């Protein structure tokens, strides 16, 4: 049962292996391949149930773990090996895996350090440069000989987003939720109205933006509850049709909606 909890927390097969090594208190330089492989396979099985996208990468690793395990099981009889076997014998079959794990662990730790730096940095704030256009002459304003690229613009946008965090109390309270159910109800209502009172369910969800889809869905439920619209389906698996019941939009009807 303990597998279910953490599966989505892994960043890949190496991450999962490090987790197991830590949990099983295994010496990374002397990995008991049978134990580790067993544990790893059990996790993979749990993941297949969940149909994770990266399953293939985990499966590739499973294959190499099995390969290493079987290499280690190969009996070595003295005096029987030829040149080729010698090279296999010289290198511990686990070496490559161990090196990869150690290398990956280094960066995983570095990522933690970055995270701490990010947190520390987030404790201090700076400000947007002042608007100095007052100081500029019109001639200067129209001069343009700068090397700019799209990333300068994206950078400016990022800075704005950062700064916008600090603007909240200056904005009005209404702006708290980007898209309100009430506004979306109105929008759904107008869509229906503009299409002569009915349209297909999917037409009401033109936006790819997930929060919008969710809010639109909620607004539709609210409209149904208020008997402003009803939804019907001709046949199984048909697209649903949404129909407008009440032709008038009365603002005051929607005042009590609690956001």
């Amino acid at each position, binding site marked *: 049962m303990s597998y279910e909890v953490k599966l989505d927390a892994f960043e890949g097969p190496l991450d999962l292996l490090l987790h197991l090594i830590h949990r099983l208190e295994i010496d990374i330089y002397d990995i008991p391949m049978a134990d580790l492989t067993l544990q790893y396979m059990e996790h993979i099985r749990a993941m297949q149930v969940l149909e994770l996208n990266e399953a293939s990468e985990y499966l590739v690793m499973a294959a190499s773990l099995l390969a290493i395990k079987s290499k280690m099981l190969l009996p070595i009889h003295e005096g029987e090996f030829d040149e080729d076997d010698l090279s296999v014998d010289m290198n511990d079959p686990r070496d490559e895996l161990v090196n990869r794990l150690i290398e990956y662990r280094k960066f995983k730790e570095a990522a933690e350090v970055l995270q701490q730096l990010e947190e520390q940095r987030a404790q201090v704030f700076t400000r947007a440069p*002042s*608007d*100095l*256009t007052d100081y500029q002459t019109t001639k*200067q304003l129209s001069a*343009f000989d*700068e090397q700019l690229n799209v990333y300068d613009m994206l950078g400016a946008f990022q800075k704005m987003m950062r700064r916008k965090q600090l603007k909240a109390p200056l904005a009005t309270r209404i702006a708290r939720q980007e898209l309100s159910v009430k506004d979306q109800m109105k929008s759904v209502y107008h869509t229906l109205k503009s299409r002569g009172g009915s349209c297909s369910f999917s037409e009401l969800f033109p936006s790819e933006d*997930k929060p919008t889809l969710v809010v639109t869905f909620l607004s539709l439920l609210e409209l149904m509850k208020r008997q402003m619209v009803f939804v019907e389906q001709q046949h199984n698996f048909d697209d649903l049709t949404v129909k407008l019941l009440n032709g008038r939009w009365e603002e005051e009807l929607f005042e009590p909606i609690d956001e």
Partner: protein
Amino acid sequence: MSLLMSKIESLLFVTGDEGLSSKQIESLTDASASEVKEALLSLQADYIKSKIRGIELKELAGTYQLISKKKNASTIQRLVENPTNQPLSQASLEVLAIVAYKQPITRIEVEEIRGVKSERPLHTLGLKGLIQEVGRAEGTGRAILYGTTKEFLNVFGLNDTKELPSLPEVQDSEEEEQTDLFMTKFQEAFGEQKE
């Protein structure tokens, strides 16, 4: 009191050209009106008195904001005149980004996104030939709609505004995952397969 003054200086510093009202300062610092008033006066006096300070406290219509000291205006002037120090200002770049991605767009809409007045950056960008009027909005005001120019494409090395990289998503991946789960259930329930 010095603790409150420090907090107020931090707050006014980060809020930049927008400033804060004394009411806002009170609620942010949990100080009383009279304490805030006193702290603001002390800061003001300190900025004037202390020769090493380069900032001043200005009150305008009940809003307090920090500004650079007037006596250093000539130094600031040099900053503005020096072309290497004056790439397109942050404000202009922000407005340009918004216009580029959201065109056609009105001034009011730009200001809603930025949360600050944007008349001057729009003006500057117009003068630099990066944006232009592309029409008028429907409705009473018939507000000007702005869009980017050919010169804009030129400067940013684009053939078309469609070549602009997509904007970063605002929500984090965790949130996305949660929404995904919701969406999955949602789609299951309604047999919808939006892609």
